[in-house]
């Protein structure tokens, strides 16, 4: 029976709380960017993830993701249904229940990331159906492949805290769903400016704060790797912000607050898979490159005509992709003995190839299954997955939830 380390346990418990806080942070980040008539619907889609995913997780989710750990397979098993037999369990040096809670927070925020893409037009009931199906059919298998010792982990792909499992996964699902949903009325001709950038910046601050738990907590220990991941997270967010602002200033003439927020998030996304595997100035390069590239990636939606409302594809899919590939360049086994050296550290291209395979597998799987879930819901739900034109004009807050975000007027 392995020993429980109290320091490790304390850090993972605190990290779980930090990561959970990211979901309301994400809700504010997105909520500020939509028009005021849709702010509550956006917050609700995110908050609801904390409800449904949590219940699924304790019922069977954890078991399907982390049952039969290290089987090099496609999915876990039903050994831990209802958290059966985990009460006094130990995983590495922490109580298994701490690990269950920590991993749960990842399962919550991943589908929440998708909400930014579908903003302003998805029916509430359709979102409920989608998140329920997606978190089971897409998240659980992919989490098993990478975090649960499944086939991708077994091949040697590295993902410290979820570049593939969280960001590529959610980004690919977002792309599938916006293609299925179609553009918002009036996009891209009508302006749909953010209703409250202060909310977006507050959300960004909460995300940055919570991300320390996301990445440094993924060490599952209070040790040197955790400290390295912590610092890398800090630096990559800063570099992401600077990278985005430089390119934005050059391309469109202004350094904007929304740009600062988006760049920091892009940097955080990219460092996620790398956090505990790279050192030195690698996070500076990773952040700068991702910040700049993600800004440019926003143009893709105008070029190809898909309405990714809040740029989940440009920030999370592209950022997650870049980060996951850069593991293959910058990974350093002096930082973490679990890492193999990447291309730039003389490890050859072996790791990079595995990273490409992992990214491609997750991207294709998530895109295809997400699209099929969407298609099925479209066929099954009497009113489809999209609100009517009139409901879209009125706004989702009133039509989906019978509430108004701001009632400051007395008339």
């Amino acid at each position, binding site marked *: 029976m392995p020993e429980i380390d109290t320091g490790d346990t304390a850090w993972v418990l605190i990290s779980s709380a930090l990561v959970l806080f990211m979901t309301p942070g994400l809700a504010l980040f997105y909520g500020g960017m939509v028009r005021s008539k849709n702010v509550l619907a956006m917050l609700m889609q995110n908050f609801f993830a904390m409800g449904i995913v949590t219940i699924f997780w304790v019922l069977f989710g954890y078991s399907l993701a982390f049952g039969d750990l290290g089987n090099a397979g496609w999915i876990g098993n039903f050994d831990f249904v209802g958290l059966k037999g985990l009460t006094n369990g130990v995983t590495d040096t922490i109580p298994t229940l701490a690990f269950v809670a920590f991993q749960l927070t990842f399962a919550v925020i991943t589908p929440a990331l998708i909400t930014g893409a579908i903003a302003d037009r998805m029916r509430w009931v359709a979102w409920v159906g989608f998140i329920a199906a997606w978190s089971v059919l897409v998240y659980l298998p992919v989490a098993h492949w990478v975090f649960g010792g499944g086939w991708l982990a077994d091949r040697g792909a590295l993902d410290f805290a979820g570049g593939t499992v969280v960001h590529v996964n959610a980004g690919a699902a977002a792309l599938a769903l916006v293609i299925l949903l179609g553009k918002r009325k009036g996009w891209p001709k009508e302006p749909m400016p953010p209703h409250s950038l202060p909310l977006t910046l507050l959300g960004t601050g909460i995300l940055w704060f919570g991300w320390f738990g996301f990445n440094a907590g993924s060490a599952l220990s209070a040790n040197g790797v955790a400290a390295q991941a912590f610092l890398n997270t800090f630096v990559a967010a800063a570099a992401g912000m600077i990278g985005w602002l430089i390119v934005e200033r050059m391309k469109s003439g202004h350094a*904007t607050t929304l740009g600062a927020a988006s760049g920091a998030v892009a940097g955080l996304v990219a460092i996620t898979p790398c956090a505990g595997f790279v050192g030195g100035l690698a996070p500076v390069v990773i952040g700068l490159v991702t910040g700049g590239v993600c800004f440019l990636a926003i143009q893709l939606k105008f070029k190809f005509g898909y309405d990714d409302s809040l740029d989940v594809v440009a920030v999370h899919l592209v950022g997650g992709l870049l980060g996951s590939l850069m593991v293959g360049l910058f990974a350093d086994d002096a930082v973490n003995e679990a890492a193999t050296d990447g291309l730039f550290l003389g490890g050859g291209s072996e790791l990079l190839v595995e990273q490409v395979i992992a990214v491609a597998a997750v991207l294709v799987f998530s895109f295809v299954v997400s699209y099929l879930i969407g298609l099925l819901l479209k066929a099954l739900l009497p009113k489809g997955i999209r609100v009517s034109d009139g409901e879209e004009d009125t706004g989702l807050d009133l039509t989906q939830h019978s509430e108004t975000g701001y009632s400051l007027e007395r008339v």
Partner: protein
Amino acid sequence: MKLIVAIIKPFRLDEVKTALIGMGVQGLTVTEVRGFGRQRGHTEVYRGAEYKIDFVPKLRLEILVDESDAQRVAQELMEHARTGQIGDGKLWIVPVDAVYRIRTGEAGTDAI
């Protein structure tokens, strides 16, 4: 009796108000409005996408005055609302058939 209606730049309100009170104006009503004139709108940029905002925020002032005061009040208002830049707004004066003070029922000039 006349009603002076003025559309002005929001940040000029304090100065206009102080000047009008200084010349004895008894009351005024302000509304936040949006619109455009020859200034047209402005451009905002979000994540590299430029949006043309057609309706610019302005304030609409309404002041009831006696006919004999109308020109003087209008001139004073314009002098203090003016920046010399495009977008300073408009002012117009319309005749008023009747004015009452709701509390007392006073009518006409007494109600101003």
